[in-house]
Each structure stands twice: as structure tokens, then as C-alpha cells.
């Protein structure tokens, strides 16, 4: 029943999309306003796709195993919250979420841009609906969440237990709002090319959408990192895994985009560059989806993969790429840039320069193994050492620019304040020396990174005091930039002062290292509703301060599906985290324990949240000014 209802709603959506394209196309040639029935159609479209999604949620809640998707990803004994979250935790359901975001953004863009030319709005709507159609076809013909199975199984296969987690329940929606939201400025960019709408005001139509998607993308990445940190049990928060990279690539493009939008809005420069960034952002999102869902990359994240999906997304991607290139080449005109070396425009261009460098590096690292494998039959791995070696030295320079840039004035600036920078730099170096002196660390690169991060932080602080005096405060920018400085600083400190020890230990044994001792005091077997757990009780003692902490890592054996997982025990404090995982060793009564001391973890999360806070402040103040 639910299956039929879902399919009918999907089909209805196809019809709605087609009729929107049809009436919008007709409306292009008439004078006056956007036709009222287009608004209505668009509203109905958003509503039906949402209803369609609720139908799927209902199927998950009622455990309707006649649907393959529900059968494969749910189980009747699963807690209600995870039944619901399971709706978008799988390939088919997540595509439906894509379609929702595409539709809602399409409708809202139409509603909120009344001041812009009619044909630009209509064309944006048409292109967005072509994208929607593409996804609807993909859902209907390849990845239909409402496909039936017969005979109807009596019980579902269950959801992978490491995916049963509150952070992972909200991670996909956040991320999708981010990179699917990028579709709307992709459509707007092409519409702008076709209608020659290249005035400054074009930036106003997309600016808030870029910021919105950027905020969500950042939060999505953050939540994913937090999940990886406490669930995967490796004690790290970023692994340069292909799937993580796929979410980072559009982020670089978005960041570059909203910076150059500032220039475009103020000085009417870089129109084509802005357009290219709009196109790149969504193209990278779709490419990321292709890489992740087609299974051509070996990754930690297990999306059940299937080559036929790959073919479909690849065709879709190619159409997007060549379509974009076609319109871009057709309309491209050489622009005259009138820039002064020392001006805000130049510094923002420098931001874009670095963003493109990061983007190219991560993109290359992600897809290079595919190329070597296809061309030379040689599989290689590109992992953290590559990215760290290429990216981090450049971050040093980037942070310095990030501190100086925002202070430059539009059009022409004088370097009157070089002495202040020198002072700040000296301060930063001094602080770094203090860190080395007190904590004894020697890594050259980390020191440079810490110095530049401190430089940015101090410069931002000085900005605040200066701005208070003049009563002209750009909170959004200062908060975001300063938090970025803090983020890099804390990552740097975390990297240098992390402590990691690995032991095989028996019950009752004690291990000593540095000024810590670890004792495995007890092992407890407990039965829970859908899993059994071996719970270790380990005492960590700091010999110097005589402080003890009890940590309880677990080894869990889940029933549906049968899976073994390791739960890390984490003790978070403002200064540091203690992180402990325990795992059994096959055919032995020893347990492998991995103890980690991770300084300033909490501050890494807080810094990212503050970066988003900065972005949201800008978003809200923009909305108020409009």
C-alpha cells in the first residue's frame, strides 16, 4: 500500500516538474510578472515530495518489510528514533532527501527573489527543475525506495550498529542541505549566463543561498568528524578518507565563492569567476556523490555500492559539466580587471587562490588512485601523509594573509601599518617560544603553523578593539576568521602534544609509561536489548598529580545484523581528552588497549561552531538588510 502511494507521489512529482518547466518556458515570452500558477505548482511540488518522504518514514516506523529499502535497513526491534533516522541513512532514502532539498530550494528561491528580472528567475526555475527531473528519474528507475519485495520477509536485516548514533542521524541532512543547496546557485548561474544578467545585483540573488549552504556544509562536516572521533575508535577526527574529501571539496569552492561575491557585489568585478565557482560547487557535490555511491573508491564508509548507479550519476554529471561548459564558452567575454596591488579586492583574490590550491590538492589526491589503477594497473593509496605534506606548509602563508587581508581598504590601500604587523608577528613568535619552552616540542612545521595561527588571532583581537573605538564592527568576519585561527592553533597543539600508547594487557595487569599507569581492573559481561557487551574497567592514574580516572571501553556484539563493534571510552575535559579503546585478540586472553591523550579536542569542535556562528551572523544581518 505504502509502496503504491510512494510511487504515485513520485510520478506526480515528475508531472509537476514537467509542467513547471512547460509553464515557465511559456511565461518567458510574456511580459509582466511571473505567472501566479507557477508559484502554486512549485509549492505543490515541494509539498508532494515532502509527503512522499513522510510515506517512506511511515514505512520505516511501521516496519513495512514489503519495501526492499526498509527490509535491508531496518528491524522491528530497533528504537523508534533510529527507525526514523534509517530513512535517510541509506542510499535510496537519501536520494529522496536530495529531491526534497532541490524542490524546496527551488520554491524558496522563486519566492524570495522578487526584485530580480523575471526571465532570470524563470530560467533558474527551469534549470533547477531539470536537475530535479534527473534525480526523480534516478530514483524511479534505479534507486527506488518504494520497490517491493516478495515474498514479504518477516523481519528486516537491521541497520549497521555503528550507524545507529544521534550524530550520524543528523549528519546527512545537514550535509545535504549544504551541497544539494548548492544546486540553486548552479541553476542561477546558468540562468544568469543565458539571460545576460551580470549586474552587481545578481550577487544579491545568490549571496544568502551560498552562505546558508556553507553554514550547513560546515556543520555537516563537523558532526561527521565528531561521530568519527567517538564512534570509529581511532581517536582521530579527520582521516582524509575519500568520502570526507568528497564533502570538503564543495566546501572549498563555497568558501571561495562567498568571498569573491563580496568583491562582485561591491566593485562589479570577477563576474565570470563567480559564475565558474557557482558551477564548480554543485558539480563537485555531484562528483563526490558519484565517487561515494558507485563504489569505485575504497573507503571507510560503506555505502552499498552498485555500478549501475555509477553509470547513471556519471551520465548526469557529464551532462551538467558539458552543459555548463557550453553556456560558459558561449557567453564568456574577457573582463577588464582594474586592481591595485594593495587593496581588499586583491586580498580576496588571494583567498580564492589558496582555496583553489586546497581544492586541487584534495581533488587530485582523491581521484589520482583511480587514474593510476585504470592506466597502469597499479593501485596506490593517497593518505594523510600526502595531504599533510602538501597542505600544511601553505596554510602558514594563508593564515598570514587572512590576518592582513580584511584590514585592507577597497580600491587602494596604504601600507601604513607594517610596524603593527611586525609587532604582532613578534608577539606570536614569543608565545610560540613559550609553548616550546614549557611543553618541549620540536616540530619545525608545527611551530610555523602555531605562529601564523597566533598571528591571525592577535590581529583579529586588535581589530575588535579598534572597531569598538570607531563603533563599526564587522562581527561576522572577525568571529569567523579568529575562530579559524583558533581551529588551526588547536589542531596544531593537538597534533604536537597527543600521546598514544598501545598495549596488550591481561586482567589485573598494570602498564606504566611517562607519568601514567593503566590497570585493567575488571571485565564485565552485560546483556542489553539488542547487543551484548564486554565492559572493561580501566584505571588511568597520573602519577605526578595522583589523579585517577576510570574509563569503561566496551566490546559490543550486536544481534541484527551480527556485528562486532568497539566503543571507545572518552573522558573529555577543557584541556584534554583521555581516549581509550579495547579490543579482544583472537585466540588469546590478552586484550589490546590503545590509550590516547588528546589535548584541546573540545576546543577544536568549539572553534568550528564559532566559524559557523560567524557565517550565520552575516546571513541574518543580510536578511535583515534586504
Amino acid at each position: 500500500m505504502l509502496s503504491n502511494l510512494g510511487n504515485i507521489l513520485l510520478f506526480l512529482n515528475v508531472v509537476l516538474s514537467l509542467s513547471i518547466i512547460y509553464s515557465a518556458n511559456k511565461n518567458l515570452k510574456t511580459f509582466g510578472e511571473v505567472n501566479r500558477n507557477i508559484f502554486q505548482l512549485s509549492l505543490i511540488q515541494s509539498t508532494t515530495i515532502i509527503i512522499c518522504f513522510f510515506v517512506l518514514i511511515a514505512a520505516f516506523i511501521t516496519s513495512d518489510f514489503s519495501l526492499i529499502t526498509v527490509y535491508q535497513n531496518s528491524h522491528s526491534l530497533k528504537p523508534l528514533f533510529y527507525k526514523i533516522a534509517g530513512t535517510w541513512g541509506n542510499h535510496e532514502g537519501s536520494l529522496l532527501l536530495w529531491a526534497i532539498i532541490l524542490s524546496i530550494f527551488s520554491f524558496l528561491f522563486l519566492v524570495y527573489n522578487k526584485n530580480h528580472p523575471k526571465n532570470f528567475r524563470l530560467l533558474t526555475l527551469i534549470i533547477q527543475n531539470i536537475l530535479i527531473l534527473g534525480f526523480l528519474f534516478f530514483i524511479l528507475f534505479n534507486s527506488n525506495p518504494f520497490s517491493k519485495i516478495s515474498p514479504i520477509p518477516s523481519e528486516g536485516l537491521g541497520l549497521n550498529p555503528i550507524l545507529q548514533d544521534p550524530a550520524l542521524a543528523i549528519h546527512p541532512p545537514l550535509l545535504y542541505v549544504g551541497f544539494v543547496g548548492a544546486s540553486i546557485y548552479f541553476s542561477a548561474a546558468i540562468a544568469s549566463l543565458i539571460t545576460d544578467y551580470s549586474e552587481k545585483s545578481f550577487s544579491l540573488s545568490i549571496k544568502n543561498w551560498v552562505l546558508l549552504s556553507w553554514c550547513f556544509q560546515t556543520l555537516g562536516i563537523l558532526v561527521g568528524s565528531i561521530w568519527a572521533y567517538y564512534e570509529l575508535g581511532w581517536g582521530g577526527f579527520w582521516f582524509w578518507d575519500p568520502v570526507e574529501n568528497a564533502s570538503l571539496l564543495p566546501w572549498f569552492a563555497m568558501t571561495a565563492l562567498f568571498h569573491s561575491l563580496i568583491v562582485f557585489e561591491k566593485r562589479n568585478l570577477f563576474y565570470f569567476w563567480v559564475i565558474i565557482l557557482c558551477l564548480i560547487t554543485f558539480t563537485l557535490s555531484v562528483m563526490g556523490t558519484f565517487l561515494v555511491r558507485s563504489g569505485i573508491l575504497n573507503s571507510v564508509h560503506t555505502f552499498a555500492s552498485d555500478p549501475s548507479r555509477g553509470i547513471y550519476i556519471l551520465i548526469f554529471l557529464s551532462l551538467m559539466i558539458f552543459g555548463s561548459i557550453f553556456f560558459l564558452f558561449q557567453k564568456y567575454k574577457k573582463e577588464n580587471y582594474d586592481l591595485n596591488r594593495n587593496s581588499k579586492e586583491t586580498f580576496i583574490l588571494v583567498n580564492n587562490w589558496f582555496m583553489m590550491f586546497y581544492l586541487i590538492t584534495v581533488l587530485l589526491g582523491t581521484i589520482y588512485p583511480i587514474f593510476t589503477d585504470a592506466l597502469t594497473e597499479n593501485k596506490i593509496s593517497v593518505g594523510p601523509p600526502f595531504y599533510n605534506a602538501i597542505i600544511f606548509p601553505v596554510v602558514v602563508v594563508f593564515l598570514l594573509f587572512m590576518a592582513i587581508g580584511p584590514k585592507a581598504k577597497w580600491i587602494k590601500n596604504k601600507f601604513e601599518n607594517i610596524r603593527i604587523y611586525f609587532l604582532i608577528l613578534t608577539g606570536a613568535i614569543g608565545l610560540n617560544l613559550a609553548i616550546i619552552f614549557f611543553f618541549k616540542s620540536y616540530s619545525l612545521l608545527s611551530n610555523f603553523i602555531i605562529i601564523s595561527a597566533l598571528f591571525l588571532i592577535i590581529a583579529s583581537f586588535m581589530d575588535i578593539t579598534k572597531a569598538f573605538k570607531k563603533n563599526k564592527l564587522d562581527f561576522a568576519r572577525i568571529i569567523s576568521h579568529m575562530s579559524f585561527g583558533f581551529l588551526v592553533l588547536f589542531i596544531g597543539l593537538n597534533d604536537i602534544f597527543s600521546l598514544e600508547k598501545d598495549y596488550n594487557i591481561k586482567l589485573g595487569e598494570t602498564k606504566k609509561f611517562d607519568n601514567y599507569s593503566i590497570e585493567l581492573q575488571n571485565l564485565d559481561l552485560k546483556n542489553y536489548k539488542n547487543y551484548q557487551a564486554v565492559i572493561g574497567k580501566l584505571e588511568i592514574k597520573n602519577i605526578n598529580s595522583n589523579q585517577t580516572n576510570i574509563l569503561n571501553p566496551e566490546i559490543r556484539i550486536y544481534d541484527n545484523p551480527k556485528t562486532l563493534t568497539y566503543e571507545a571510552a572518552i573522558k573529555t575535559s577543557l584541556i584534554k581528552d583521555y581516549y581509550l579503546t579495547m579490543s579482544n585478540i583472537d585466540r588469546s586472553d590478552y586484550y589490546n588497549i590503545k590509550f590516547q591523550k588528546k589535548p584541546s579536542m573540545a576546543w577544536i569542535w568549539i572553534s568550528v561552531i564559532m566559524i559557523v556562528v560567524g557565517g550565520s551572523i552575516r546571513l541574518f544581518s543580510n536578511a535583515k538588510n534586504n
Partner: protein
Amino acid sequence: MKLNLILLLFIFFSKFSFAAEKTVDPNLIHKNLRCLVCQGQSISDSNSDFAQTIKLVVKDLIDEGKTEDEIYEFMSDKYGDWIVFKPQFNTQNSLLWILPYIALIFGGFFIFTFLKKRQ
């Protein structure tokens, strides 16, 4: 004067980095080796049979006095390049290592020409 200061700083830092003893850290090596039987995990993060064996062998190799790079070479000789997370710098991987910097230089050049035109 400024140059001197920078030079001084540089010497200062390089002294620090050389002062650190050049011992091979097994943890670092474990982190840079892929656990072939796991999903994208490193040897350090995994506790599989395979990872444990590799840890033993790495320890032996360090005791034999092998350097970090020699150990990676040993591993990729046995298991293929797939096992090492840090791709070697060779003809096949040269584009991977060089292209990002070419992009960086090219971008800088691009911006520079924009500014030059104005003068």
C-alpha cells in the same frame, strides 16, 4: 636588519628540529600503512590478525636498523604500493606531487599579471 632576524630565527628552529633524535617511531609507521583486510583503516587503528603481524614485522625491521623509508619500501615490495598511505615520489606519481604546486604557482602568476596590467 630584518633579514638577519629571519636568518637567526631560521637557525634557531632548525637547531630545534635537528636536536630531536632521529629515532624511528613505530606508531608513525603503523599510521602510514594500510590494513589490507580492513575497510580503509591503518595498521595502527586495526586489531586484526594482519595488523598485529605487520606490527611485529615493523618492530623487527626497526631493530634491524632500517629507516622509515626502507620499511615502506619493504612493505610495498611485498604487498604493492596500495599498503603505503604516502605515495612514493616516482614517475607514476610525479603529477600527484607536482600538480598542486604548479597550480599554486600558476595562480600566483595569474594574480600577478592582473596587478601588473594596472601599473
